[in-house]
């Protein structure tokens, strides 16, 4: 056991080109960036040449797990997979795919904090890690198989309790929209093809060791109980979705859906979700009954239970048993997912029995199996939106040969037949024809290849944001704060710090009170009434991004943390801004308060920025990178910004928002690039020097 708890102290580095396996000292090399995505950025910055493309052998994959994963820190079952991302457009730039499950925890028990994959194997392989023993094993018998069978086969070879992260045929075939998946329903988007490019089918882990907690047992238990007491439901929604006797408020959009009379109807016997009082920590697992939330009331009778990641008391993955799927389509009747869209449904215009009827549930399950087994990423449902857009605009017909177009049974699509999904997903996974090859490229390359009209990039209905990815909780939820956050990343921003707080279900009056203590009351607008930007909003945006980076590095779930609000009326619904720091300090023994840990997050985020600038070979982040699509400013056309009832933004105001955001982080106002002083403050003099050598450091 090392000096610190939390970390195992060892990072595994595997070069698939020559089979070399090396062990690195995590503390010496990576403690300053914690773990997870922080390690990913550091390795890419130090080791991967500028302008490397995603499928080049020089690209590296960093599966980063932080000091909290593997412990009982609630909602700490995450893994960050950082690499040069294939779906970023037009330049391929740094980004991270995130997965939950139990893979990251198992890696820690096996004695490893991170796995760095380098090079390219000559033949298909998988990596087998059993505690300290690491083997690169032949995977020729697995190649060509889906994720389910690959996982099952590896478990046959290594033991049924092995945690496997694998790619499907999509990843093997270098489909850009592909995933790495673990534990049946936990997938990291965008990174499957990078595994495939290295001929790496899977990383399988079994661990019998431990993660040490530095704090004494009593202190650790108290901290956990305290944090549980201020957690809400999925997405840290803190009020119930229906009126409850114990609750002062309710909000129909809340994921705290448990109530009397709502069951896990396919459990044998059925289990009532029932009344889930905030104080009752033994019922937290029932709070989020999500199948009915996502799929409608008919999903109640199909719900076996809820599930999710190791260590998380909030269960957000719906587990369904839909017998008709097996009978009608030949797929397993059992499927699990946490995605609101459940993949498959979103391709269809309509279903014969309505949007929330039986066909829609069957489409959800069929889609989950196809995407999950073939390993296809839907890019936050942009794949579905693009498909529908291209179909409606006649662009599929225009870009396919007649014979290929006719080979697709469009009448089944028109009828809303879930079996049609097999046509879509299979063609994408195997890059069949123009249809499959183009759709799997991701939004940016697809739109270019099929010559989407300029309107595509300008209409809110397409959800296009920039660089090949859609909006993810932007202006429609958080005004300028949402816009700023969406601008900062190369893929969709995957940030929930802001939306969890604003969608917690609490009335604006209380949100303003809580915001006043964290960023200033001006961070929150009245419902449907956006006001011009102010410093509070920029602080809120910076906090949101830094906490996301912190979570992706510790590794905690950014769908639950930060805990800015709580369900407890006795606390005035206040959460606790210091819980991440308290968990970190207790587990590692490296005592840091919230401000100190936020500074580490700032260091990590600055690395992301530096990498982006390096690989874009451009310092003008303000003009070239931190952009928003036209619809943000132009819709609805008949409204003026800052009038009630819509979320139309104003271009000048967003430029002011950038000024304020850059100011908060000490970045150069003109370019949005980190200034030397701010980098040196973060201990990144080496990064500043390198940027200067590349002429990417602002003069100020």
């Amino acid at each position, binding site marked *: 056991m090392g000096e610190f708890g939390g970390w195992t102290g060892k990072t595994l580095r595997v070069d698939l080109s020559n089979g070399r396996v090396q062990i690195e000292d995590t503390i010496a090399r990576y403690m300053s960036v914690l773990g997870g995505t922080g390690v990913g950025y550091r390795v890419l910055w130090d080791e991967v040449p500028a302008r490397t493309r995603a499928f080049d052998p020089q690209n590296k994959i960093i599966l980063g797990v932080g000091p909290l994963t593997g412990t009982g820190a609630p909602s700490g079952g995450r893994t960050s997979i950082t690499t040069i991302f294939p779906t970023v457009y037009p330049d391929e730039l740094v980004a991270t795919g995130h997965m939950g499950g139990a893979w990251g925890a198992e890696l820690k028990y096996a004695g490893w904090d991170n796995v760095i994959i380098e090079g390219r194997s000559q033949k298909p392989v998988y990596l087998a890690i059993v505690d300290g023993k690491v083997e690169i094993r032949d995977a020729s018998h697995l190649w060509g198989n889906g994720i389910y069978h690959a996982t099952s086969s590896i478990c046959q070879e290594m033991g049924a309790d092995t945690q496997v992260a694998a790619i499907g045929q999509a990843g093997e075939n270098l489909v850009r929209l592909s995933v790495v998946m673990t534990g049946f329903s936990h997938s990291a988007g965008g990174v499957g093809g990078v595994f495939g490019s290295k001929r790496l089918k899977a990383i399988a882990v079994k661990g019998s060791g431990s993660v040490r907690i530095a704090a004494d047992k009593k202190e650790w238990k108290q901290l956990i109980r305290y944090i549980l007491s201020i957690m809400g439901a999925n997405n840290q929604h803190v009020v119930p979705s229906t009126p409850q006797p114990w609750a002062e408020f309710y909000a129909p959009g809340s994921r705290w859906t448990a109530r009397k009379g709502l069951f896990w109807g396919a459990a044998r016997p059925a289990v009532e979700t029932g009344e889930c009082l905030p104080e009752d920590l033994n019922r937290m697992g029932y709070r989020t009954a999500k199948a009915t939330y996502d799929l409608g009331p008919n999903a109640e009778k199909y719900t076996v239970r809820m599930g999710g990641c190791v260590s998380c008391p909030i*269960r957000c993955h719906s587990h369904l048993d839909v017998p008709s799927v097996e009978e009608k389509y030949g797929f397993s009747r059992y499927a699990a997912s946490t995605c609101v869209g459940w993949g498959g449904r979103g391709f269809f215009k309509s279903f014969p029995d309505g949007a929330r009827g039986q066909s829609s549930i069957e489409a959800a399950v069929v889609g989950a199996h196809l995407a999950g087994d073939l390993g296809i990423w839907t890019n936050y449902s942009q794949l579905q939106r693009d498909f529908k857009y291209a179909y409606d605009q006649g662009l599929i017909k225009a870009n396919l040969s007649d014979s290929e177009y006719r080979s697709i049974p469009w009448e089944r699509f028109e009828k809303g037949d879930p079996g049609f999904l097999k046509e879509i997903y299979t063609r994408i996974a195997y890059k069949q024809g123009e249809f499959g090859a183009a759709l799997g490229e991701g939004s940016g390359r697809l739109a270019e290849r099929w010559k989407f009209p300029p309107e595509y990039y300008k209409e809110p209905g397409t959800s296009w944001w920039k660089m090949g990815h859609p909006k993810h909780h932007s202006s429609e939820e958080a005004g300028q704060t949402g816009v700023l956050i969406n601008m900062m990343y190369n893929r969709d921003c995957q940030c929930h710090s802001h939306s969890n707080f604003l969608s917690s279900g609490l009335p604006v009056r209380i949100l303003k009170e809580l915001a006043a203590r964290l960023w200033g009351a001006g961070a929150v607008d009245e419902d449907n009434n956006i006001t011009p930007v102010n410093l509070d909003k920029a602080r809120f945006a910076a906090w949101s991004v830094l906490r996301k980076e912190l979570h992706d590095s510790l590794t905690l779930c950014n769908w639950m943390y930060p805990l800015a609000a709580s369900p407890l009326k006795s606390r005035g619904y206040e959460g606790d801004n210091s819980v991440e720091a308290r968990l970190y300090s207790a587990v590692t023994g490296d005592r840091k308060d919230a401000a100190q840990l936020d500074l580490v997050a700032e260091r990590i985020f600055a690395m992301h920025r530096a990498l982006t600038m390096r690989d874009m070979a451009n310092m003008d982040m303000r003009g070239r990178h931190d952009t928003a699509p036209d619809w943000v400013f132009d819709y609805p056309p008949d409204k003026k910004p800052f009038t009630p009832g819509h979320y139309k933004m104003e271009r000048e105001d967003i430029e002011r928002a950038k000024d304020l955001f850059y100011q908060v982080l000490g970045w150069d106002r003109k370019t949005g690039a980190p200034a030397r002083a701010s980098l040196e403050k973060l201990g990144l003099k080496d990064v500043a020097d390198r940027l200067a050598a590349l002429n990417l450091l602002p003069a100020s």
Partner: protein
Amino acid sequence: MISRLGLPAESSRRGFLLSTLGVTGVTAALARAQKSASAPFVILENSMGILVADSTRCVGCRRCELACTEFNDGRSQPAIARIKVARNYNFGPRGQGAGLGRSPGEFGNFRVLQDTCLQCPHPVPCSVACPNDAIVADLETKARRVDTGKCKGCRLCLEACPWEMMNFDEVSGKATKCFLCDGKPECVEACPALALRFVPWRDLTHDTPVRRAALAALRDPKSAGCPACH
């Protein structure tokens, strides 16, 4: 007889003894055991309580395993947790052979089975297998616990448990098992889905499928006392 009787919640220590062996049997066995120094007494009083698990409610978060090891051992280590979910999580107790959707578990029908110590009645396999008499009934709860002062780390108890509920702690070099956290099980407190309960003991050995054939034979000198009752 054991499984037929069941146990009332208020059972006294004497009540456990009575229901297990009957008055005559206990008295006679005690008397004989006291006379024979060469035949160690292998009968443990029955546990006062037992953990029972409801697999329809288990959500697979494994907070029970984490609470077990973190609050007892100060580290997270599911491999030595005295409640076991991880090993059944993917495919259930029988592995992946049945095929996708055909077994319990996450890759099956979603049922997650939690394995708990049965706090076995006589003969207690882990205890009778121990050459050092290191597995004893707790003075208060009568849960079978490892006396770490006596345990020499031979791991025979791991071979003896048909339910594979014994663990070996490589850090301490000792065996470790469920001792019901002195009457307040951490796993029960930690479960977010009410899938675990701590209830008065009853014999579940006949109702719980074994995971493997165990080393069952009693060796001398422990077996020397067996004819006294059998």
